[in-house]
């Protein structure tokens, strides 16, 4: 049986992924999840100004390639520059403190615009003095750093946005 926290975690992960449907079966218990398409993972194309549909709207009402911004209408004008096009997010594999550089004095591992290879170390997440060097795991370019140096991050929290094109 899955615990409530685990289900919550899965929902979060699926929310952030490009998966539309998910089902999991164990010992006679089945968990099924399905996303409304418009709340699904963001797509490659730059977000067009949103149709002001509420988040709960059915998918037919909204163009599927449209990203719903986290903030409502008044943010739309700034939207263009704020969320750049990306198709991959590097997420934290554990709870901990996010470090963008190996030491306080050194240069950051990556910056906006940095080209990364799958094995490029992009940051460190530290929990209980275990220092986890996070690799990009994809080839591409960092387009947005979502967390500040020294900030606490959650399991599964997106840290970087990457274009793999």
């Amino acid at each position, binding site marked *: 049986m899955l615990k409530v926290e685990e289900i919550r975690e899965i929902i979060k992960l699926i929310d952030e992924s490009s998966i539309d449907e998910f089902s999991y079966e164990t010992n006679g218990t089945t968990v099924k999840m399905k996303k409304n398409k418009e709340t699904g993972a963001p797509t490659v194309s730059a977000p067009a100004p949103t149709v002001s549909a509420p988040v709960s709207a059915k998918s037919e009402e909204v163009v599927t390639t449209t990203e719903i911004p986290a903030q409502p209408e008044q943010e739309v004008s700034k939207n263009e520059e704020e969320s750049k096009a990306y198709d991959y997010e590097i997420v934290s594999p554990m709870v901990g*403190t996010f470090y963008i550089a190996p*030491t306080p004095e050194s240069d950051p591992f990556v910056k906006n615009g940095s080209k990364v290879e799958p094995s490029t170390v992009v940051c460190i997440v530290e929990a*209980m*003095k275990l220092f986890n060097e996070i690799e990009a795991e994809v080839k591409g370019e960092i387009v947005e750093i979502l967390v500040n140096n020294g900030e606490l991050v959650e399991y599964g929290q997106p840290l970087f946005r990457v274009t793999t094109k």
Partner: protein
Amino acid sequence: MESTRNKLIRLLADAKENYISGQQLSDQLHISRTAIWKHMKELEKDGYVIEAKPKTGYRIKQFSENVSANTLKWGLNTSWMGKEIIHKPIVTSTQHVAHQAARENTPHGTVVIADEQSNGRGRMDRVWHSEKGKGIWMSIILRPELPPYIAPQLTLMTATAIAEVLDQHDTLKPKIKWPNDILIQNKKVAGILTEMQAEQDRIQYVVVGIGLNVNQENTEIPDSIHYKATSLKMETEKEWPIVELVQQILEALEKEYNAFLENGFPSVKTKWENYGFRIGEKISLHSGNKQKNAIFTGIAEDGALLIEPTKGKTEKIYSAEIDWFVE
């Protein structure tokens, strides 16, 4: 496969003060008496003092105190820990060498150990003083088949194993400062730095670095700006044999690790809390630019720090700078 040399050492060690004849050794090891004699010469090169008495046999008068891959392996009672040992007289840091070795696919349990580190480091690259032959500076490569979020528990497990080894000596009374510094009389004697390479759901490898101050004199060990430091010699007023201590630590680590894989964190938690520093006391935590005071009540089922900021409320902490003494 146990090497002939290793078997030879064991036979001699088991016999303690008694002599074993060359013939007896030759029979048991299936090698000639000349070969035995050659092995004895090699042992002497590695720092063992062997006594050969005509018509009686051989015995070890003194075990080697030289640290080498051989002396560490001989008499090491483990099944996977330290089966591969990389010993160097001087390195920049054993962590650095271990990372390189791990990338070249060295096996689980490989130990990198140095007499001296020119650039020993701790958390956030803070300098760790590691003079020649005065302490244990080593890094262990682990390849656990665990999800990455479990890995931080390995640091608490390592600290527990080291505390247990030190605790065998009545007077030391080691404490563990969460998550993994070993203290004696409120002063730091050992630090652990754990680094991991992992994918989202799979650990490639973990390098556990251990720095233990052993035979430094009072004047040889500068206090860090972050803590007061001590050594085993300063606390006990005697020299400690490095080889034996390394072996004890590796044996304890293997045992703790196996138990951890089998039973999970609960067994570590209980032991850890027995050594826990300032449990039940008021501490101060900083994270980012936030700061708060709270009572430190123990550790959680996953090793996180448990605090009580206000009566009846419990919070889990995974990462913070902690000030352990609050008025």
